[in-house]
């Protein structure tokens, strides 16, 4: 048995009976894919992966990383808000309508409401863009 830690030349590796046995098993395993040319698809996929790595550059990485951060930020912010609101609501008695309306004295609650209204406005503006169909040119 050859070990991975001990450098060997290629001929010695191939001459090793365990290597030969492993290759024989692998060939049997791959035979159906080889005989039907389906292994070609896997090789093509590897080639495409290699192409993508060659084509990727710093700018692509920056854009993907930024998109990732924005998605994570949105999930993280929403998760924090949900967790906090859920814990407070679960640990408290349901407020009366009067107690509920007094929550509006809290500036952060008003800011949250303002945020929701702004969000609805932004959604509305985007929906309006979808509604307009420009003339053909």
């Amino acid at each position, binding site marked *: 048995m050859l070990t991975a830690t001990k450098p060997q030349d290629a001929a010695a590796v191939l001459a090793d009976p365990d290597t030969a046995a492993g290759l024989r098993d692998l060939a049997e395993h791959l035979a159906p894919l080889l005989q039907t040319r389906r292994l070609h*698809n896997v090789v093509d996929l590897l080639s495409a992966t290699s192409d993508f790595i*060659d*084509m990727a550059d710093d*700018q692509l990485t920056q854009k993907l990383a930024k998109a990732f951060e924005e998605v994570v930020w949105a999930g993280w912010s929403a998760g924090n808000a949900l967790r906090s609101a859920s814990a407070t609501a679960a640990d408290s008695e349901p407020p009366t309508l009067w107690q509920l309306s007094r929550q509006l004295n809290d500036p952060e609650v008003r800011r949250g409401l303002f945020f929701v209204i702004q969000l609805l406005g932004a959604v509305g503006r*985007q929906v309006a863009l*979808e509604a*307009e169909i420009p003339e053909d*040119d």
Partner: protein
Amino acid sequence: MKKRIVIVGGGIGGTMTANNMVSKLGVEIRRNQVEVMLISNSPWHYYKPAFMYVAFDMYHKAELRRKQATLLRPEVRFVVDEVEAFEFSASRLHTRSGAHYDYDYLVVSTGCLPAPERIEGLAEAGDHFYQFEPARRLAQKLRTIERGRIFITVTFPKTPDVPHQCGIAPIETTLMVDELLRRRGVRDRVEILYTYPSVSQLLRNCLFMQKQTCEVLPQIFSDRDIHFKRGFTLERVDPDARVAHSSEGDSEDFDILMSTPPIRAVDAVINSGVSEAAEDEGWLPTNRRSLQLKGHPNVYCMGDTVDLPISKAGGSCHNQSPVIIDNIAFDLRQGATPAVYDGRVQAIAQMGLEAGMPLWYDYDQDVQPTPPTKVGGLMRKTFNRGVYWATARGLV
């Protein structure tokens, strides 16, 4: 004083630049120190490479366009108007509606236009796939041809070392024609003749604008019984006799003449008077590293409008846009323009109706051709139908 960045052109270059610009300058925009404006002559954004597929009945109009406003981040001020005149020295532009806009920075991404009328008889007798309606007309012919000859020509700009639109397109469509005719069962009755001009950028008597790809093409064409001929520079076409004549003194008859026609910049760019291009083609003299318009450091050029030896294609814009954005952002914040374009272009070539070949090159390194595969074809189809729009939105 609020700085204004104006981007002209609602193609892929202008759109991705507007979106990524507001992302890059998010802080300045929130503080109302910077405004990013996009001016386009159309409320629609067209995926221009899909016109090629229209010629093969593979795309409907609704599938290859989106409303421009739906592709833009809300921070971008979008104006539908036609720029009629650039005053680069005054940092001002004028539009068809009578408005004028002063700018601190300008990005010109106005593309190019097919100009078959620049070759006698070509507009009457030739077809091409670089616009929607011409592609539909070509589709009608490809759908119905039963026998005869499809003759393919490629015309380069007269300006030295400037390529035609989308370098790989003539090969892509030649292979697609072959496959379409085989599917229709008429391939054995229709001859395909692919020709290439004597001068293609820096190469002479080749079949493609880059040597390594040129060397593999004869085998690819021979395997498919596609005939090919070097040294045919289309000079004039006789629409009645259906004969194409070359400046080398050769003549070829045809039933369909599928051309890559001459191209030119848009009128406003030509009329700006700063172009040094031959035959009034209008390419803007562009610094190949910083992408600034020569003599006007607050103006940047990208995509088809430049006079660089780089493919006039979206894959060029994808690499030029970040350089321009970086240089404008650095200049605004630190008074320097350190970002450098290395000539990088990437694409996935459509090799026949199903196969694809990823490719990339830059100023120093030519395309390394690899065998087209179905996986490459799936990548291209995925890009066409989805990834393109994410790219326009600045996400990829």
